[in-house]
C-alpha cells in the first residue's frame, strides 16, 4: 500500500459526489458525513455540481417510456409522507396499513402544513411536527372512527377519533370578511368550550388536534369576531357528533 492510500477522509467528498466509492467505502463516508459539518456542506455543493454534469448529458427519452411510466405509477404505492417525515411514530404504524380515504386526505394536509413551517420558523416547525405526530397517531390508529358532514354555509367538516383524541378537519369553507373568523368548539353537557380560532385571511381549510374528548361530545363551528368569543355568539355552521 502506498502512503496515499491512508489519505485524509475529508478528501473523499469528490469521489463520493461522483459515486466513485465502492459500496462499503460509501457507507463509511456517509457515517463520517454525519459527524463532519464541513464535509456535509462541501458534499452538498459537489453533488449539485455532479448533477449538472448529468444534465449536460440529456438525450431525448423514448416516447414509449413515458406511456409505460405513467401506466406503471397507477399501480405503485407511494411511500407514506408521515413515515418519511416523522421518525418517532414510524414504529407504531404497521407499514401495510393503508389509511382510509378521509384519513389519507388529512395526511396530505398535514404534509403541506409541515412544508410551509419547515421553510420558515424552525421552532414552530418543531411544534408543528409534534402536533403532526399526534395527529398522525390518531389518523393512523387502526381503531379510529370517522364522520363527515357538510358545513351549512359551504364546505365540509370531518372528525377522526381514536380513544379520547380526535382530529378535526374542515375544507372548502367560504371566505369571511376580515373582521370575522371561524371558531371551533367542543360541546359537552356543560356547554361549549373553545378550541381555537382560525386566523383572518382567505384560508379555506383548517385542522385541529383535540384532546380529552368523550364519545358523547360534539364539535361545533361558528363564525365569530376575528379575536374569538368566550362563548358562541352565532348559530353554528356545523355541529358534528363524535363518530360512533
Amino acid at each position: 500500500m502506498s502512503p496515499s492510500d491512508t489519505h485524509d477522509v475529508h478528501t473523499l467528498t469528490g469521489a463520493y459526489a461522483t459515486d466513485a466509492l465502492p459500496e462499503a467505502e460509501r457507507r463509511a463516508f456517509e457515517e463520517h458525513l454525519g459527524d463532519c459539518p464541513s464535509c456535509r456542506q462541501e458534499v452538498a455543493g459537489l453533488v449539485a455540481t455532479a448533477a449538472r454534469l448529468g444534465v449536460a448529458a440529456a438525450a431525448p427519452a423514448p416516447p414509449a417510456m413515458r406511456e409505460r411510466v405513467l401506466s406503471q405509477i397507477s399501480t405503485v404505492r407511494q411511500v407514506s409522507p408521515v413515515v418519511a417525515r416523522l421518525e418517532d411514530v414510524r414504529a407504531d404504524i404497521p407499514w401495510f396499513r393503508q389509511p382510509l380515504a378521509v384519513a389519507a386526505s388529512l395526511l396530505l394536509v398535514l404534509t403541506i402544513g409541515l412544508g410551509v413551517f419547515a421553510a420558515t420558523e424552525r421552532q414552530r416547525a418543531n411544534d408543528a411536527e409534534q402536533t403532526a405526530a399526534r395527529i398522525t397517531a390518531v389518523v393512523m390508529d387502526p381503531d379510529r372512527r370517522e364522520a363527515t358532514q357538510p358545513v351549512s354555509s359551504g364546505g365540509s367538516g370531518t372528525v377522526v377519533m381514536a380513544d379520547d383524541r380526535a382530529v378535526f378537519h374542515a375544507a372548502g369553507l367560504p371566505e369571511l370578511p376580515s373582521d370575522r373568523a371561524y371558531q371551533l368548539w367542543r360541546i359537552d353537557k356543560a356547554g361549549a368550550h373553545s378550541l381555537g380560532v382560525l386566523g383572518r385571511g382567505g384560508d379555506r381549510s383548517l385542522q385541529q388536534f383535540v384532546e380529552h374528548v368523550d364519545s358523547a361530545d360534539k364539535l361545533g363551528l361558528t363564525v365569530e369576531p376575528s379575536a374569538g368569543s368566550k362563548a358562541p355568539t352565532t348559530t353554528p355552521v356545523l355541529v358534528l357528533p363524535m363518530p360512533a
Partner: protein
Amino acid sequence: MRAATASNETVAHMPLLRRVPAPPALNERTSPEELLARVALGDVPAFELLYDRVASTVFGVVRRMLRDPAQSEEVAQEVMIEVWRTATRFDADRGSASTWILTMAHRRAIDRVRSSQASHDREQRVAHRDHTPAYDDVVEQVETHLDAEQVRRCLGQLTDLQRESVTLAYYNGHTYREVAELLDTPLGTVKTRLRDGLIRLRDCMGVES
C-alpha cells in the same frame, strides 16, 4: 369533570389552528420543487409535468453510463417510478429537485454498471486499458444546449488529470480505484483530483455551496 381542553386565553392568540393554503394551479413555470411536493401528494398531472422536465436528463445520464439503449431505457424508467414512489422523501433543505433526481439516476445506473457480469466485464476492460477517452466522448455527444455548453467550457478549464478523473468516474461510472488504474496514477492523487476538479467545476458553474 375532566379539564377543559382550551382556556379562554387561547382564544385571543389562536395558537392551535393551523392554516393550510390552497395549492396554486400548475403551469409551465411551476418549479420542479413545487411539482415534486405535489407529486408527493399523489398528484398525477404534476408528475406528468415533472416527467416532461426531467426525463431527458435522466435518460441521458443513464445512457451515457450504460451505452446500451434498451438497458438504459429500463433503468431510466425505474428511476422515474422511484421518483413517484419516494417523492415524499425529497427534502428541499438538502438540495434541488433536479439534483435529487439526477443523483438517483446516477446511483441506479452505477448499480447496474457494477452488478455481476457487467462489473466483471469492466474489470477486464480496465485491465486491458480498453476504454474510450471519456472527455472526447463528452465533447462529441453533448447537445448544443446551454447546460452542455457550460459544462464543456468548465471541463475545459480543468487540468487533464482532473478532467479525466471526473469524467471517468461520473460519466463512465468507474470507481476511483479503477480510475487510478486507468490513469496509472496513485489512489490518493485520484481522490484529490476528483475533489479539486469538482470544486473547480462548481465554482466555474456558479453552483451554490
